[in-house]
C-alpha cells in the first residue's frame, strides 16, 4: 500500500510539471503578460522594456518557468493586478469554491446514485423511462442555460432564493448553484449507476444472496451496490477537478466570488500570475483526487490489492 502510494506520487510529478508548463506557455507565449499593466492603453516602449526587465520577461521562457516554479515551492505565487498577493486571493476564493464543490458532489452522490439504483432495478418500467428522459434533457441543455433559467425562475419570478450569492457564500446560499453545477454530472452518474446496477443484477452472487434469504435492502446495499460503484467512484473522482475548474460559468451567473470568478478576472485583466497560480493548484487537486479514487477501489473491492 505504502509503496503503491509512493509510486503513484512519483508518477504525478511529470504530469504536474507538464500541465503547469502547458498553461504557463499558453499564457506567456500566446498572450502579452505586461499588456494589462498599463490599464486599457498600450504601454509605451520604454515603460514596456523596463517592466519586462523588472519581471524577468527578457529571459528565455524555460528560465522564466523555472524561476516561477521555484517561487511557487517557497509559497510565493506573485501578485495580482491590484497589488494583492495571489495567495491572499486564493485564501478568500478556495473556501467558497470548495463549499460549492462539496454541495455539488453531495448532490451527485445522493441524488445521482439513488436515481441510478432505482432505475437500474426497475429497467424498462415507467419510472426508468421518465428518469432516463430527464437525464437526456439535462445533458442536452448547457449548464449556463440551466443556470440562467433557474436564476430567472427561482430567484426572480418566484423569489425562493436570492438571485445573487452574498460574499460570505454560506452553504444554504450555495444549494441551488451547487445543483446547477452538478446537473450535467448528476445525469452522467445516474446513467452510469443504472447501467452498472442493471449489469450486476443478474450476477451469481446476487442470486446467492437472495437465495440464502437476506433481506432485500441488504442484498442491494451490501452486495449489489458495493460491486456496482467502482465506475461511479471513478467518474466522481475525476469530476472533482472538472467541477472546480468548470465552476467559472456557475460562479459567473450567481455572482459567487470563488476560484472561477478570480480566474475570469485574471484572464480578462491579462494577469498571468493569478491564472497560472490558480491553475497550478487546480491541477494538483485533480491529481490528488484521482489518487484518492484509486485507493478507494481497494475499500470497495477487497479483491483489489496494492502491493
Amino acid at each position, binding site marked *: 500500500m505504502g509503496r503503491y502510494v509512493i509510486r503513484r506520487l512519483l508518477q504525478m510529478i*511529470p*504530469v*504536474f510539471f*507538464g*500541465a503547469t508548463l*502547458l*498553461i504557463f506557455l*499558453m*499564457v506567456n507565449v*500566446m*498572450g*502579452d503578460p505586461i499588456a494589462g499593466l498599463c490599464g486599457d492603453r498600450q504601454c509605451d516602449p520604454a515603460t514596456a522594456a523596463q517592466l519586462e526587465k523588472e519581471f524577468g520577461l527578457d529571459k528565455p521562457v524555460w528560465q522564466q518557468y523555472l524561476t516561477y516554479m521555484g517561487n511557487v515551492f517557497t509559497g510565493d505565487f506573485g501578485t495580482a493586478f491590484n497589488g494583492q498577493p495571489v495567495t491572499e486571493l486564493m485564501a478568500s476564493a478556495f473556501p467558497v469554491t470548495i463549499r460549492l464543490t462539496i454541495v455539488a458532489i453531495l448532490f451527485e452522490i445522493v441524488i445521482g446514485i439513488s436515481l441510478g439504483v432505482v432505475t437500474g432495478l426497475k*429497467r*424498462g418500467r415507467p419510472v*426508468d*423511462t421518465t428518469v*432516463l*428522459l430527464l437525464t*437526456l*434533457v439535462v*445533458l*442536452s*441543455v*448547457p*449548464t*449556463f*442555460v440551466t443556470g*440562467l*433559467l433557474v436564476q*430567472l425562475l427561482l430567484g*426572480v419570478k418566484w423569489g425562493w432564493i436570492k438571485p445573487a450569492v452574498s460574499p460570505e457564500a454560506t452553504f444554504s446560499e450555495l444549494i441551488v448553484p451547487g445543483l446547477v453545477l452538478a446537473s450535467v454530472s448528476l445525469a452522467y452518474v445516474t446513467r452510469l449507476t443504472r*447501467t452498472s446496477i442493471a449489469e450486476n443484477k443478474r450476477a451469481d452472487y446476487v442470486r446467492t444472496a437472495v437465495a440464502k434469504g437476506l433481506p432485500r435492502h441488504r442484498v442491494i446495499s451490501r452486495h449489489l451496490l458495493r460491486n456496482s460503484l467502482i465506475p461511479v467512484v471513478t467518474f466522481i473522482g475525476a469530476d472533482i*477537478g*472538472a467541477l*472546480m*475548474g*468548470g465552476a*467559472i*460559468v456557475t460562479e*459567473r451567473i450567481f455572482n459567487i466570488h470563488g476560484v472561477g470568478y478570480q*480566474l*475570469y478576472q485574471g*484572464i*480578462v485583466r*491579462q494577469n498571468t500570475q493569478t*491564472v497560472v497560480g490558480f*491553475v497550478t493548484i*487546480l*491541477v494538483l487537486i*485533480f*491529481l490528488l483526487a484521482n489518487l484518492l479514487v484509486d485507493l478507494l477501489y481497494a475499500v470497495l473491492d477487497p479483491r483489489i490489492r496494492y502491493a
Partner: protein
Amino acid sequence: MPEPEPFEPLESYGEEGRAIASTGAGGASDLATAEAETLEQRPSVDAAEEAAGGPEGAGPDKKARSLWSDAWHDLRRNPVFIISGLIILFLVVISIWPSLIASGDPLDCDLSKAQEGSQPGHPFGFNGQGCDVYTRTVYGARTSVSVGVLATLGVAILGSILGGLAGFFGGAWDGFLSRITDVFFAIPVVLGGLVLLSVVTSSTVWPVIGFMVLLGWPQISRIARGSVITAKQHDYVQAARALGASNSRMMLRHITPNAVAPVIVVATIALGTYISLEATLSYLGVGLKPPTVSWGIDISSASPYIRNAPHMLLWPAGALAITVLAFIMLGDAVRDALDPKLR
C-alpha cells in the same frame, strides 16, 4: 418532441444485444475467426474482420453478418436513431441552405423593434438589437453544426492515429504518449479554452475548432489505444504476423476494422458536447465573436435582458438543446448497435 415512446423498443433491443454479447464473452471469440464463419452462433462482434474484405461480407444469404451490416440492421429499426437522424438531417440541410426556411437576413436589424415579442412574419420576436430572432436562430445552426462536426473529425482522426500507433507499437512511445494524455486530462476544458482563446482575435470558427481538437484528442487516443491493444492480441493478428504480413497490412486490414467501433461511438457522443462547449465559450466571451451568427453569442447577448424579454434567450437555447439532444441520442443508438456490451 415525441420522445417518451422510443425508450421501450430501445430497452428490448438491449436485451437482444445482451444475448449476443454473452455468446461473445463465452470464449468462442478466441477461436480463429476465419474458421468460425460457418458456425451458426458466430459472435457478431468478431465478424468485423470481414467488413474490411468488402461488400460480399454482407450478403443476405449468409447466416453471419458483419458488425457493420448488423449494426445497420439494428439502427434501421431503432426509433431513437430514426428520430435523431431526421433532426440531424434537417439541421444539416438548414445549415447548408438556411434561406430555404428563413427568407430574411440575420444581420438586418431595426433598433426601433428591439426586444419586441412575436409578430406576424416574425414568429420568435426580435432581439436586443432589433434583429429577427427566427432568422438568427436558423442561421445559427450552420456555425454550431460545422463546429461540432469539424471538431469531432479532427479529434477522431488525430486521437485514433496517435492512440492507435501507441497501442500497436507500445514501448517508450506509448509511455510518453500516455503521460502526455495525463497532462491534457489534468487541465479543465473550460479553463483551457478561456486561457487559450482569450488571446485569439480572429472571428472565424477555426480557433475554436483548433482548441477543441487540441484538448479533445487525448480522450479518443485513450480509447483507440485500449481497443488496438485488445485487437492486437487476437489470434488472427498473430496468424497474419506468422504469415509474414507487414506492420501496415496488419494495422489496416486486421486491427483497424476491429478496433474502430469504440472510437466511432465515443466520437458521436462527443459531437453533442462540442456543440454545447462552443456555446459555453461564446457565452464567456472567448468563443465565436460577432458578426458570426451563433446560438452561443445570441444566448450570451440576451442573458442580461432575460427578465424583460426571455424569448430572446429561449429560442436559440431551445434550438441548441434540441441539436445537442439529437446528437447524444444518435450516439446512444450507434453505441447500442455497435457495442451491445457497453450498455
